[in-house]
């Protein structure tokens, strides 16, 4: 099995497979996979239903290194059953998160404190539609286990979400990804709870037209989420860009990293509710109205601009209001 790390760095994050993403994020040759394809741990539920199975159950999880940091990487593969979380890959995800907590606790017990340049880091690349419906209960349990782990990681281990793949983070993964400390995305990233087709089916085409691509992207796309502050950093689409950002943040003290959080305290809940209040008060009918409210004038051009220009002109929601 060969992986050319140098070639991976220039590769598009969007086009790479889950395994390539995981290997490219950490230092060259340091990635060790948990339950890889050779372990052949396939989903027992899919076999019973006569659905195709995959040896890694649509997820690459493992540990690697960035400098002196142990980095726990979870990378979802959206092309296999929509990247959805089932029993096997859900357990892989939650146990990798648990391992990061155990790693932190073991370091703390042995050395008294965990130095900033050696602390463990969790990186999750989301590419999922949520719960795998074939094994729905197991998938929901897995989600709640992941949420519990992420709660425990808070203020201990930096937890970084990457939204840079074709599916983005939908369904239950939508709020799992925002429970992280930092959210990184490229222009292809999307975050949502309910997918466009389901919204249209449930509340009608007048409310949300699922065939209107521009509407979908300006409602759920990374640029809109960047303006609203759900996405902390908007990056170019290459594995190197994401890796460089993580490397740059890796030595920051935990108190600095926690400042990027979106959830996890009463003040942050108030801050999020405030956006909802603004949407009600200002009669917001479209994302563009909200962008205008936060001081953007050329709202029709914003989605079309090249990323560099977009980042220069865009005005974002101020934090802490």
């Amino acid at each position, binding site marked *: *099995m*060969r992986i050319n790390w140098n070639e991976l760095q220039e590769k598009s994050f969007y086009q790479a*497979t*889950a395994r390539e993403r995981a290997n490219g994020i950490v230092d060259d040759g340091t990635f060790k996979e948990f339950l*890889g*394809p*050779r372990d*052949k741990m*396939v989903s027992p539920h899919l*076999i019973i239903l*006569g*659905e*195709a*199975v*995959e*040896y890694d159950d649509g997820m690459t999880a493992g540990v690697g290194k960035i400098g002196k940091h142990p980095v726990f990487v979870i990378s979802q*593969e959206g*092309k*296999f059953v929509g990247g959805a979380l089932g029993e096997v890959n859900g357990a892989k995800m939650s146990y990798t998160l648990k391992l990061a907590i155990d790693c932190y606790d073991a370091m703390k017990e042995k050395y008294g404190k965990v130095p900033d340049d050696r602390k463990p880091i969790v990186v999750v690349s989301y590419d999922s539609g949520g719960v795998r419906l074939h094994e729905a209960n197991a998938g929901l349990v897995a989600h709640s286990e992941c949420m519990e782990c992420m709660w425990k990681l808070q203020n201990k281990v930096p937890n970084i979400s990457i939204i840079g793949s074709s599916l983005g983070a939908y369904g239950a993964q939508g709020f799992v990804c925002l429970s992280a400390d930092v959210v990184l995305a490229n222009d292809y990233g999307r975050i949502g709870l309910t997918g466009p087709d389901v919204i249209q089916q449930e509340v009608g085409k007048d409310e949300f037209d699922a065939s209107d691509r521009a509407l979908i992207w300006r409602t759920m796309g990374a640029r809109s989420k960047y303006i609203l502050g759900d996405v902390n950093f908007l990056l170019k689409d290459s594995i190197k860009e994401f890796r460089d950002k993580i490397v740059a943040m890796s030595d920051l003290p935990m108190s600095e990293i926690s400042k990027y959080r979106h959830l996890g305290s009463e003040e942050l809940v108030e801050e999020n509710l405030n956006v909802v209040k603004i949407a009600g008060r200002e009669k917001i009918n479209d994302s563009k109205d909200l962008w205008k409210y936060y001081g953007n004038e050329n709202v029709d051009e914003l989605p079309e601009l090249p990323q560099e220009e977009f980042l220069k002109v865009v005005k974002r929601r101020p934090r802490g209001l």
Partner: protein
Amino acid sequence: MALTELNFEFKPGNPKSIVDDWSHVGVVSSSDLEVLIEKGKACKGKACFHVLTTVVGFDNIWETVLQRIVETTGLSGVNVSINDNAATPAVVKRRILQAIENGGGLQ
């Protein structure tokens, strides 16, 4: 409908094996497959295939396609495990050749 499980063994005229211990390529998406090649002592001089596919009734085509690949490349001494989600023969051939290349080629 249940998955189809197929097992084949082919002996090539000019046996060669992959350089690395194992090799894996592909994602089981629609019309695609994953190929896992592992060196195995039990398969000396032959290539053992284990195929799990969603398609029914194409057993002969699988046999022909895999046999041809083994004959032309000389692939042997390996267990080849395939998870397939309705890939066409051309894609199957491509992926197996890709897996051989990913394992350092044949020698």
